[in-house]
């Protein structure tokens, strides 16, 4: 690609005295200790700037030209990860204002809408971002299937991706209960009632009565900490939503990205 890296016809709008100040700052030991490569205007420097930076090193030094095209990859994997970061940031900020307690949770939601500065924007971004993440992760899976990108050597990374899809759905589902309004309460009631129909492990499921499974010791009881959605379910949803599932998702994402980094973007073989 780009062979002529030294552009001599540069038009500068920066006054000369400012340029001198910039050049002085760039020559200081402090600046050089932070940015060790310098402006990456040659190919070796372009490689070095990626390789020598902790954060940039999540990207490869060189990428496949084919996989870069938007019409090929749709950017959906990257957008999903970015939405995860956005949801982490807005989620941490929401945690300052929200207490998962039966009598407080709903009032905290009202405070977020009417009292907390920018609280309504914060909650809206978290909500729409979460719906967006579920949607983009599904689109990402559809794209990977249609381009056959799960073929060797990427078979197991597809498996990890399916688990990440499941974790994304569970993250969204646990978050649904937290506002403690009628919408979330009954949606989670409907969802968790399905667990009581699990064969062998749910009290309404086939064959479970032979194992002594009842309403107070089945899999649904373990999920919601009671026989109906109540304060225990709220705390469980909160802890899974804010700690447990994000940790599992992060562990799986590290693996997912490491494999992509090693295998490169998929392209025609």
């Amino acid at each position: 690609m780009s062979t002529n890296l030294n552009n001599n016809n540069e038009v500068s709008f920066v006054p000369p005295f400012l340029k001198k100040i910039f050049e002085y700052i760039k020559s200081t030991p402090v600046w050089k200790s932070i940015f060790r490569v310098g402006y990456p205007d040659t190919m070796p420097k372009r490689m070095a700037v990626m390789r020598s930076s902790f954060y940039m090193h999540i990207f490869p030094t060189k990428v496949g030209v084919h996989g870069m095209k938007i019409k090929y990859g749709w950017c959906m994997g990257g957008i999903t990860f970015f939405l995860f970061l956005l949801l982490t940031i807005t989620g941490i900020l929401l945690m300052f204002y929200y207490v998962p307690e039966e009598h407080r949770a709903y009032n905290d939601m009202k405070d977020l809408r009417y009292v907390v500065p920018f609280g309504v924007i914060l909650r809206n971004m978290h909500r729409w971002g979460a719906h967006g993440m579920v949607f983009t992760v599904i689109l990402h899976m559809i794209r990977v299937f249609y381009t056959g990108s799960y073929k060797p050597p990427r078979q197991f990374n597809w498996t990890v991706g399916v688990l990440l899809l499941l974790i994304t759905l569970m993250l969204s589902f646990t978050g649904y209960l937290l506002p403690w309004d009628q919408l979330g309460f009954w949606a989670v009631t409907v969802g968790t009632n399905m667990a009581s129909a699990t064969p062998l492990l749910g009290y309404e499921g086939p064959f479970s009565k032979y194992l002594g499974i009842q309403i107070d010791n089945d899999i649904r009881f373990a999920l919601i900490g009671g026989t109906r959605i109540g304060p225990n379910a709220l705390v469980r949803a909160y802890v899974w939503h804010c700690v447990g599932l994000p940790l599992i998702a992060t562990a799986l994402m590290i693996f997912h990205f490491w494999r992509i980094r090693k295998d490169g973007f998929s392209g025609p073989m």
Partner: protein
Amino acid sequence: MAETKTDAMISTQPGYDRMASWPYFIWVVLLCMFFITILIWTVSMFFNAPLEEAAEWAKTPNPAKAPWYFIGLQELLVYFDPWIAGVIIPNQILIGLILIPYVDTAPEVQGCYNYSRRKFQFVFFSFGIFLWFFLIITGQLLRGPSWEIYWPIIDYPLGGHEWTYPNQILKASQAKLHNLSLPVGITISVIGFIVGMTLPAIMFKKYFKELGIIKYSLVMTHVLLTLGVVGKILLRLVFGIKYVIVTPWFNI
């Protein structure tokens, strides 16, 4: 078994052109981040996240709907008992998805949108995605009180958010349902399974030999399960059949 290619081997493939990540790729990522942030921010400025009245155990809304991504499963509750719709089907979908790379190992078609050489894969996967979203749209937009179908224009003539006219009686289920007797149900299921497993093997001998018996069985089991779900939906809608197999322990 296809040979596993490592990073070094991919980068030496003649068709695999590479370019420095800096600055183009980094720019794409940065612009993408800006675009998504602005999009989410703008949407959040104009549309408030839903917040209904405080949760109350005594007030059951009709209908109580699951979140949109699970509503397809809730929609399946019309046609299946909860242990199938809520447990077996989602688990089987996950198992099926995980199996995909291990049954579809033909290495030549990858990294491009190629329909002609992957017709079966395209059709089956697209059908599954279509079915999933079809159920979601039905459940989310068309289901009203008592989980009956409420059509967008016919049943909300004023374009309001109320389910019906103020004085109109809610819809009641008109369906008269009956079950197949056990021998008939088992016979139909077994014949369907045997024909479904053997007929494609005879019709497409070349593919059967390429796949081998294990991969073929795994693929066809999932195809038949998918068709079984559709078949059960049609049996219910067209013939009013509730259960195909009735036993003292479980019903299908």
